[in-house]
């Protein structure tokens, strides 16, 4: 049975799909397409007519049982369209999709729910939409209710449920499918953390037996579950491969870096900030610094300090591209409070030794605060960026070499 793990369950060959920007014209094309479907003449499939564009262009991949593709890209990149083609909801204009086995779609959780009916009744409705038979639902009903943790509310109308509860019930039903192919489209946005973890565990469990396509904007989740990443940009394949960290990096690079944000009372202002650049052996302010695992991070900055400030603490925080806070330091940690030498510009330097952050782009936030009240005199978010190149590919937040040895 071990060779079943090598079954190609999804084969996507040169799939393209076009849409029309203009709604009325789209309807007219629709009617033309309908009539063309009957005749043998004419073929608009490969050319773009007026106002048309490729929503999905020439996407090819194969997916075997046990593998998972993380499908990423920003809004409108064509992810959901591709998913709909895989699910058979849309017909491709060019190319072909071959799907083997039962398809489970964790896409529209709770489809077919009627708000007036009770949770129990809606389990049957939703499960029927997902393709369960009556007998299957009867057999799985208890497991569904148990997984959803809805408890006695299962007999209340679904309109009394919170949005989280609806998603719980919807997921619980969908998760009871035993699919060969699993399509997941950004379904865990609501629901509390405990349930998200529970869902992720269930998905991981299902994934060992299925070929999975996972669409999400949450890169930590993509990094966690995917064996490959397909990055789509304007309908086209921008990156495809098993180097998930690289794929996610390219995704993040598609976005412009956020602007600097100034907060705080304004009694201290940031004048200049620069990072040490190993390549040029100098301090640079143009975000070009590249660090490698184990390098020291050196930051110099100039502050303009007003009269009334007598003493203050300094702090620094790094955020990765997913806005995770990955590293913090503060003069307070070492019991150091700075005294103002009088109004005007003053210079500072901080060294963070042996940086072990994972590869990626990091944003620095600088903070100056009142030591007694902890109020911010200054808080500058995204004041400077730097890039990190770790010794290995990893989805962890920190990457270290480690001292490896075999022991008796």
């Amino acid at each position, binding site marked *: 049975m071990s060779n079943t793990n090598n079954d190609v369950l999804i084969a996507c060959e040169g799939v393209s799909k076009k849409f029309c920007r203009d709604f009325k014209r789209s309807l007219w094309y629709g*009617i033309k397409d309908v009539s063309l479907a009957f005749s043998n003449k004419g073929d608009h499939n490969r050319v773009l007519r007026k106002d048309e564009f490729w929503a999905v262009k020439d996407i090819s991949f194969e997916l075997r049982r046990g593998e998972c593709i993380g499908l990423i890209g920003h809004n409108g990149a064509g992810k959901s369209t591709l998913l709909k083609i895989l699910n058979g*909801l849309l*017909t491709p204009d060019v190319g072909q999709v071959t799907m083997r086995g039962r398809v489970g779609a964790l896409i529209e959780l709770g489809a077919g729910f009627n708000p007036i009916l009770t949770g129990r009744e809606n389990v049957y409705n939703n499960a029927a939409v997902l393709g369960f038979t009556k007998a299957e639902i009867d057999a799985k009903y208890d497991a569904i209710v148990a997984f959803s943790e809805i408890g006695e509310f299962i007999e209340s109308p679904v309109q009394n449920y919170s949005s989280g509860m609806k998603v719980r019930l919807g997921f619980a039903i969908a998760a009871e499918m*035993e699919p060969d192919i699993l399509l997941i489209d950004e379904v865990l946005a609501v629901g509390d953390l405990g349930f998200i973890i529970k869902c992720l565990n269930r998905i991981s*469990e299902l994934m060992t037996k299925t070929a999975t396509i996972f669409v999400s904007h949450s890169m930590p989740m993509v990094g966690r579950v995917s064996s490959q990443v397909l990055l789509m940009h304007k309908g086209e394949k921008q990156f495809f491969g098993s180097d998930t960290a690289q794929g996610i990096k390219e995704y993040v690079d598609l976005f412009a870096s956020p602007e600097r944000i100034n907060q705080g009372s304004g009694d201290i202002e940031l004048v200049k900030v620069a990072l040490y650049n190993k390549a040029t052996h100098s301090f640079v302010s143009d975000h070009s610094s590249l660090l490698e695992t184990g390098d020291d991070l050196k930051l110099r900055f100039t502050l303009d300090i007003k009269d009334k400030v007598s003493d203050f603490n300094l702090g620094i925080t790094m955020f990765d591209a997913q806005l995770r806070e990955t590293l913090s330091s503060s003069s307070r940690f070492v019991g150091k409070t700075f005294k103002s030498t009088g109004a005007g510009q003053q210079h500072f330097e901080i060294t963070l030794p042996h940086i072990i952050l994972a590869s990626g782009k990091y944003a620095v936030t600088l903070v100056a605060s009142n030591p007694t009240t902890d109020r911010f005199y200054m808080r500058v978010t995204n004041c400077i960026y730097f890039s990190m190149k770790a010794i290995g590919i990893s989805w962890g937040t920190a990457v270290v070499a480690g001292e490896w040895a075999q022991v008796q």
Partner: protein
Amino acid sequence: MSKKQPQKTTLINLKVFINSPAKQSRNVIDVRQMFADLKAARFLGRQIFIRDTKAMFRQSLLGFAWAILPPFLSGGLWIFLNYSGAVNITDTGIPYPIFVILGTLLFDTFTQALNAPSDAVNAGKSMMAKLNFPREALLLTAFYKLLFDFGLKLLPILVIALGLGFALGWTALLFPLGALVLMLLGYGIGVLLIPFKMLYGDIGRIITLGTQLLMYATPIVYPMPASGFIRDFNMFNPLYYLISIPRDWFTGIPVVSLVPLWLGLILALIILFFGWVLYRITMPIIIERVGA
């Protein structure tokens, strides 16, 4: 928390689904595939019907009354108009209340049948845009609803007929069958119209307007005139036959010829089949444009 699942089947047993440009996908109009899909849709169709019906009655005070009232109200209106002398309707051969209530009930069944398929598809549009399920389920839901509504109306009509001291003959048993043919004709046209109604809102309005005109052009609240334009028109109006034959059955008037009924049935089935084929071909194209 996970339970052991049986080892998955091998590749050979897996259902293969191929999605490729429309012209290549033959099985959309493969008759065997069509009926296989219809069979697969039965449970879901029934489930959606039960869901809608339950929800409808749970959220209303009068419940079943809403299914029954409209044709009886419009029937009652005509009875009032006739007896008050506002309109003068020639002798129908049977008590006028029975005549007009049967007529309006049958016509109401027809217009409902005309609209039910597109209503059901519209209601399921967002579901269709996101999930793959047998599309026939929505058509079945509409048909179940029609049967259910008709069944509901049958009961009070019996009560009224018996209450008026009307003796029902054995032919009254044929009444539902005649009504079924009428229903199938409306339903078939309704299915055929789904794609057009979904693409352009105008179609729905034309149908509403058209059925209102048709109601007065067809001998429903008045008997067939002995001569004139109305008579000439209705000689070719299938609705006239499909309404008058069941009505005559119910009231025990001898039916001259069953040929129009059989023709009506054949016509209904042909339209229904083509509507079904068109539905299967056009639905993916339409859903991608107006869905979600």
